[in-house]
């Protein structure tokens, strides 16, 4: 989230779209209720279903799953045509005035530089025009037709209310009502917040949907404002933390990236990431990439990482391509994988096309499960009748199932959506012989290290030299690991201006990533977490919940990355001259010498107002991007593309290009997509508030609250199919079927899309063949294997099914 949970109470308007905060984040949703009660805020919900968030909303509008960009594009068009944007904010803090290269084009759904064979773009043309010093050219008067603002205006002029209503199925008047409500927030002192979750991310155009939302917020001047921002409601308690720590195929901790196999030279690897400013006087904070990277290498490989070996640059594996879960299971299914570890993850249930996942797992030599609970993945080889019809004798995979502790039985920290790192304490012993994750990983690693020490083997260096200075080698303590990722000085750090002055003595914990050096004199496991465990102790365990400003910024509660800042880009909450857009909700201010206030300034502390330096300090441009240059896979401006299983077999905007041209589709999967003729209904999967994915079916209370697998259909579809509430139905996609009880409801309406009546089938995900709740089918038996072009997040939210009474 750019802001945080409690900050939502400062909003005037809350848009919940592509998410269902009341169901998935009830205690966070309290702050929406507070905003409504205390600030008279309005809540607008746009969702294919009338969800529990809609039940307390001031206005609800239905939308066809998978048409979010059409809707948002229409809203942008409405704001531009009705001139309902925050002009001063847009001109100062976005790249609206930048001029784009001449050879950039967009026709019939395709941007310039498309390569049909590789299904990807050559993105050279998606760039600003640069002057001789390499800075982007800008036209403040917005006369140049190739200004980003004008290109954007032309791009979204095509999203008229009629076109939007035709694609999204949202009745025209309801769409316009939402637009009017949103438009009220273009006033500087009216702030809207957007709360979204997997309803937006789990599409083949997921990242672009979020970008459209961000563009909307930029046009309204809401980013950086208290009560504003783009707020992703993360799903798991520490999905934010593990993403920050880079536990993804192509990442290193702190959102640094692994080298590609073509980056053989260390310096070019660093230069490509240490982006120089694209506008004069910008901070472009990624320039410090080398400090963060070298500090990481020192943390991991200690003395073995020296300037001579480029701080073990070659010890890092280099990417041929991204090995995301869809790629891994594609390779596994082709027999290229031998081993697989599932640490607290249930892929058989969580990944699309369960039949393919089950088949792939069966081709493994060994599978290691580390989990507190029995999972379907650990028993993928067991026959569970219709739910998992396999023959154990034919599955040659050796499976190890190692019991791990749960939250109540271990110390450590978790990062919530608002980037707060919060420490928790162990309250009980684990059952039986279960052990903590640290103990299990350390046990495996120390055993492996022994083997390599004794027998040698392929490239043992990173293994043998991995820093392992833990007091108990087979059981590293949480405190030791927390101190490690905070970072410490390896040698006395002296002040550049006055070498005699020692800032940090060797061995001391660092206070923040500002102290990191690229000469190997500092070690830091995760630069954005630096400051979480300083010499003043464990900042993550702080418990002072005082809120002096009343805006909900409790700076002394736990610790937020980066540097305990609670609202990102908060410099943008003031105009260039330093006057807050809304004095009632003032976050920071200039006191004559430096910036300060109720939040840690997201700016260089000593740069006065009026200076050319702009609030978006991570971007080379210093401003937010309406034109995403080459950062996105399928285009600098979000464009509406249909889901790969589209109910209307065309794309009303450009029939020539129906689905996302840049999304990766494996061989054979294109044919596996269901067609509307055989599977006429749009299905979407989602969570219920009473359950957490596939865990809580093991908890008796939650199994009682939602005991049996069900699907939700509108009354119209139910009548057409002769289905009554409580009947058993069979839902079929091109990849398999599930059976469930039918909940017939007024909360799902048939929508008119491209002249066709489109029905929606809601499919909750929480059942499987293990647990106390009634056994059921894994919902992902139905879902298609195609991911978002940028993140490869599978398209769970919009695919096609057929439904019939059993």
């Amino acid at each position, binding site marked *: 989230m750019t802001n945080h949970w409690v900050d939502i109470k400062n909003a005037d308007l809350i848009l919940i779209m592509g998410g269902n905060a009341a169901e998935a984040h009830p205690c966070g949703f309290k702050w929406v209720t507070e905003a409504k009660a205390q600030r008279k805020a309005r809540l607008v919900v746009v969702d294919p279903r009338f969800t529990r968030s809609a039940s307390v909303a001031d206005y609800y509008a239905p939308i066809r799953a998978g048409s979010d960009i059409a809707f948002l594009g229409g809203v942008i068009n409405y704001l531009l045509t009705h001139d309902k944007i925050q002009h001063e904010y847009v001109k100062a803090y976005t790249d609206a005035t930048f001029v784009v290269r001449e050879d950039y084009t967009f026709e019939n759904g395709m941007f310039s530089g498309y390569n049909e064979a590789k299904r990807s773009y050559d993105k050279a043309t998606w760039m600003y025009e640069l002057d001789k010093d390499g800075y982007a050219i800008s036209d403040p008067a917005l006369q140049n037709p190739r200004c980003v603002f004008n290109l954007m205006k032309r791009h979204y002029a095509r999203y008229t209310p009629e076109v939007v209503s035709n694609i999204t199925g949202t009745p025209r008047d309801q769409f316009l009502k939402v637009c009017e409500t949103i438009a009220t927030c273009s006033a500087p002192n009216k702030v809207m917040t957007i709360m979204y979750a997997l309803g937006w991310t789990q599409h083949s155009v997921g990242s672009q949907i979020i970008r459209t939302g961000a563009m909307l917020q930029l046009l309204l001047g809401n980013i950086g404002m208290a009560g504003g921002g783009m707020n992703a409601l993360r*799903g798991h308690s*520490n999905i934010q933390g593990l993403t920050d720590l880079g536990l993804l195929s192509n990442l290193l901790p702190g959102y640094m990236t692994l080298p590609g196999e073509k980056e*053989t030279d260390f310096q070019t690897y660093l230069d490509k990431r240490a982006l120089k400013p694209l506008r004069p006087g910008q901070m472009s904070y990624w320039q410090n990439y080398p400090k963060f990277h070298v500090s990481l290498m020192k943390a991991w490989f200690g003395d073995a990482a020296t300037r001579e070996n480029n701080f073990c640059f070659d010890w890092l594996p280099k990417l041929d391509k991204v090995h995301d879960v869809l790629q891994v299971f594609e390779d596994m299914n082709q027999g290229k994988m031998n081993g697989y570890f599932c640490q607290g993850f249930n892929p058989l249930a969580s990944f699309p096309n369960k039949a393919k996942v089950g088949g792939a797992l069966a081709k493994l030599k060994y599978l290691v499960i580390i989990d507190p*609970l029995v999972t379907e993945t650990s028993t993928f080889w067991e026959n569970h009748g219709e739910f998992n019809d396999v023959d154990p004798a034919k599955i040659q995979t050796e499976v190890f199932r190692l*019991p791990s502790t749960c939250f109540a039985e271990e110390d450590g920290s978790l990062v919530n959506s608002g980037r707060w*790192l919060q420490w928790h304490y162990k309250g009980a012993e684990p059952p039986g012989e*279960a052990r903590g994750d640290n103990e299990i990983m350390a046990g495996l690693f120390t055993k492996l290290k022994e083997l390599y020490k004794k027998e040698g083997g392929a490239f043992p260096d990173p293994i043998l030299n991995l820093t392992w200075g833990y007091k108990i080698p087979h059981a590293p303590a949480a405190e030791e690991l927390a101190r490690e990722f905070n970072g410490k000085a390896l040698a006395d750090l002296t002040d550049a201006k006055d070498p005699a002055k020692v800032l940090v003595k060797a061995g001391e914990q660092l206070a923040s990533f500002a102290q990191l050096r690229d000469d190997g004199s500092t070690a830091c496991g995760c630069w954005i977490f630096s400051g979480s465990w300083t010499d003043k102790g464990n900042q993550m365990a702080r*418990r002072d919940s005082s809120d002096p400003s009343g805006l909900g910024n409790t700076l002394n509660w736990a610790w937020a990355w980066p540097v305990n800042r609670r609202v990102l880009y908060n410099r943008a909450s003031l105009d260039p001259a330093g006057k807050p857009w809304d004095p009632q909700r003032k976050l920071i201010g200039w006191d004559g010498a430096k910036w300060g206030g109720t939040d840690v300034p997201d700016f260089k502390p000593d740069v006065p107002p009026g200076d050319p330096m702009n609030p978006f300090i991570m971007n080379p441009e210093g401003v937010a991007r309406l034109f995403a240059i080459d950062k996105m896979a399928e285009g600098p401006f979000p464009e509406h593309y249909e889901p790969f299983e589209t109910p209307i077999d065309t794309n009303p905007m450009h029939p020539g290009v129906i689905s996302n041209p840049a999304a990766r589709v494996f061989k054979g999967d294109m044919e596996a997509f269901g067609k509307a003729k055989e599977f006429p209904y749009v299905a979407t999967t989602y969570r219920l508030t009473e359950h957490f994915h596939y865990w809580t079916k093991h*908890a008796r209370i939650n199994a009682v609250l939602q005991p049996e697998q069900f699907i939700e259909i509108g009354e119209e579809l139910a009548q057409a199919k002769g289905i009554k509430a409580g009947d058993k139905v069979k839902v079929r996609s091109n990849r398999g079927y599930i059976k469930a009880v039918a909940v017939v409801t007024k909360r799902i309406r048939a929508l008119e899309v491209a002249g066709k009546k489109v029905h929606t089938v809601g499919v909750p995900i929480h059942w499987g063949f293990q647990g106390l709740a009634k056994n059921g089918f894994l919902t992902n038996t139905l879902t298609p294997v195609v991911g978002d072009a940028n993140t490869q997040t599978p398209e769970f939210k919009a695919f096609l099914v057929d439904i019939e009474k059993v």
Partner: protein
Amino acid sequence: MQVTRRQFFKICAAGLGSSSLVMMGFSPTEALAEVRQYKLSRTTETRNTCPYCSVGCGILMYGLGDKAKNVQAEIIHIEGDPDHPVNRGTLCPKGAGLLDFVHSPNRLRYPEYRAAGSNEWKRISWDEAFTRIARLVKDDRDKNFIAKNADGATVNRWLSTGFLAASASSNESGYLTHKVVRSLGILGFDNQARV
């Protein structure tokens, strides 16, 4: 007093009747209206964070016993932490039911092993599990490690084994996992953020 035989019997019967009443507790015991005892009075309170969604609600866990050595602290109740600035003591239906996750009958209790083609689990020791897994990992890594790619560039990667990390485990476990997995050269490495 002239008492005929029959009258004598009547008097005895009456006497027997009333006395049996007393013997059977004729006077009802005074039923107290005391309220049930507050079950947390002497338990140990530990602060923690709910492991489910990313609101990160603060929780209070009440463990049996007062940390005396001879008691196995069993958690008997979990409720919201009123001091936590986000949830202020509230919990959702999942958080309020955390006790049943901690005490779920489906909690794994000891390492188990399933042999290729077998139809059952066999219990094994931790040491045996680590030894056999390390062996499998080393053999597979040594066999399939790619030091240089087709163009002769150093890549040092190992693609034939993948790793899925938990996104409910702590930062500390996540950091340690990342260190270990990258040192082996694994690229097929993800966590729930991917879905």
